[in-house]
């Protein structure tokens, strides 16, 4: 690629770059910089006095057993969401790939959840799992299985995982389906002639050939579970009961916005920022280097 545009004057290229730079500066670098700066400050509850405290916000954070609980919650939650969303999407994509008649309709239906706002998705799941008005919730209770995600932390975690994964399945489905369709048919036929049956073909041919897609989605889903599930959690459980579904992102919100502890909230944001930078770096490093078939 050696297509260089030569500008006669130095000013024009900078002018052309300016809008993009302005947006990035105003909406990313400035708030991010502020968060980093606030992470080293402590403010009183009324915002009158602000003192520089160095790394104290961070040391406090990691000394707080509740924060460690939140980390554990986030690990359970994001692992659950990622595995569930990937597995279900892969299953659906394999089925959709086989389907010949009505394939477009089937695919469109499967892609719909992606177009639904997180809060609305959460309301749908409330209507399913609410112990007194939810279809499944009531059925479970009627069947003698006590189910109330508003009281039971594990059940609450299950419900937010389900709701968040459901949102992400469509996205994964699109990528898996595209991945499946790019596997040459002849390769699968060759495997069939070599004596491999459907299950064997899936695990020895299809799954390895999908691995670049799977890896990409793994990172995307982790990022999603870490950062984009705020809406679902807020609408369903608000982090409860007893902080059982409080993830890192939710706690950053609660501490900053509800408890008005801007210093701690900023420190948490910085931790999250480091996580997302790491995930992105891993993705770039490995996805770019991975073998693409």
């Amino acid at each position, binding site marked *: 690629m050696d297509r260089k545009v030569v500008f006669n004057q130095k000013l024009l290229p900078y002018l052309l770059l300016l809008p993009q730079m302005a947006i990035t500066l105003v909406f990313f670098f400035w708030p991010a910089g502020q968060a980093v700066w606030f992470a080293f400050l402590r403010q009183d509850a009324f915002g009158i006095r602000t003192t520089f405290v160095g790394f104290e916000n961070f040391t406090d954070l990691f000394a707080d057993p509740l924060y460690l609980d939140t980390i554990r919650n986030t690990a359970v939650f994001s692992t659950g969401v990622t595995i569930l969303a990937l597995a279900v999407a892969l299953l659906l994509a394999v089925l959709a790939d086989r389907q010949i008649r009505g394939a477009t309709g089937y695919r469109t239906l499967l892609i719909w959840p992606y177009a639904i706002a997180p809060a609305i998705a959460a309301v749908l799941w409330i209507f399913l799992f609410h112990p007194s008005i939810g279809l499944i919730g009531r059925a479970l209770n009627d069947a003698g299985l006590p189910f109330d995600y508003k009281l039971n932390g594990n059940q609450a975690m299950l419900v937010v995982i389900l709701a968040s994964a459901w949102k992400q399945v469509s996205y994964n489905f699109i990528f898996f389906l595209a991945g499946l369709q790019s596997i040459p048919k*002849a*390769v699968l036929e060759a495997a069939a002639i070599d*004596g*491999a049956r459907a299950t064997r073909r899936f695990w020895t041919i299809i799954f390895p050939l999908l691995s670049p897609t799977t890896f990409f989605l793994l990172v995307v889903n982790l990022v999603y579970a870490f950062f984009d599930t705020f809406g679902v959690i807020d609408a369903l459980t608000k982090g409860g009961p007893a902080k059982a579904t409080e993830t890192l992102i939710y706690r950053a919100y609660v501490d900053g916005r509800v408890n008005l502890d801007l210093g701690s909230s900023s420190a948490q944001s910085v931790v999250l920022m480091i996580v997302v930078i790491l995930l992105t770096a891993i993705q770039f490093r490995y996805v770019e280097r991975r073998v693409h078939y």
Partner: protein
Amino acid sequence: MATLDLMDVRKSFGPTQVLHGVDLHVADGEMIVIVGASGCGKSTLLRIVAGLETATSGHVRIEGREVTGLEPADRDIAMVFQNYALYPHMTVAQNMGYGLKIRGLPRDEIARRVAATAELIGIGPLLDRRPRQLSGGQRQRVAMGRAIIREPKLFLFDEPLSNLDAKLRVQMRAEIRRLQKRLGVTSLFVTHDQVEAMTLGDRLVVMHQGHAAQVATPMEIFERPADTYVAGFIGSPSMNFLAGRLAEAGQAVALEAGPVIRFADGPRPGPDGMPLTIGVRPEHIRLDAAGLALALELAEPLGSETVLHGRLPNGEALVVKLTGPGPRDGTLPVALPAEALHVFAADGGRRLDPACD
């Protein structure tokens, strides 16, 4: 090592019928080439034998065993695909060993057979490479190796040479033939290339619109084509066809172009005046001062020979192949030797042989 029998194999895709009842018996160790233009159903036929497609009706038997309803895995066959269809995420050795691994052979046995096969087809140094690191010819060899390593009952080749360049194609063609003879495995080879068909096959199946137009040895197909389609398909440049009528109580043909030619091999059945199609190969046409005047339109000098396209006085097109250089334009007096004529019924194009006495 097996026989293959196809009995009245038919296939329809929805309302489109692509195979209209094909019968074929392949003897043990025989190499059969299925040849035809694209869309004639030859690949479908091969895929039905492989079990990748299900026949709408009819039977497939391998070694006398009914396999019509079996999965490809249960048929004990191997196939070489047009685009090789190697497993991109496996090394050459893994590609070749895949079928053995599935059959549950021990690891050292697989390694031994992979090494032996690689030796046989000359890809020994490539065993640790992946398919994308190989050239077209090398991939072709790996695909061959993957097929022969399992020692299947039947080899199926689906246009395996058509992605190679011309020189490599000739080389691989000879290699496939040598290998097949040496291993003695019954083989079906699909191609649209008549040279491949003629050189590879013990017998050819010329497919036309879902029918097997003729099943015979290459020379028989060349010398006694069963109908005008086969006659025109095999041979290059293709056979000339001239209109004529039966004359002299079946002893001769009166060509529309003028001359009346007595058949060299005896009378044809049928009433005088019956419309005929007379075929004559370009290389059999002779120059004869007393012959027809061929007005030349195009000359194709090929070095050792020259192909001349022209028109007879009555407007019929004729192609002549001469050895050595030829004239570029003007007219050329040509004669059609009686012993080189192929006689077909104008209606339906079937070959007409001399009436038995």
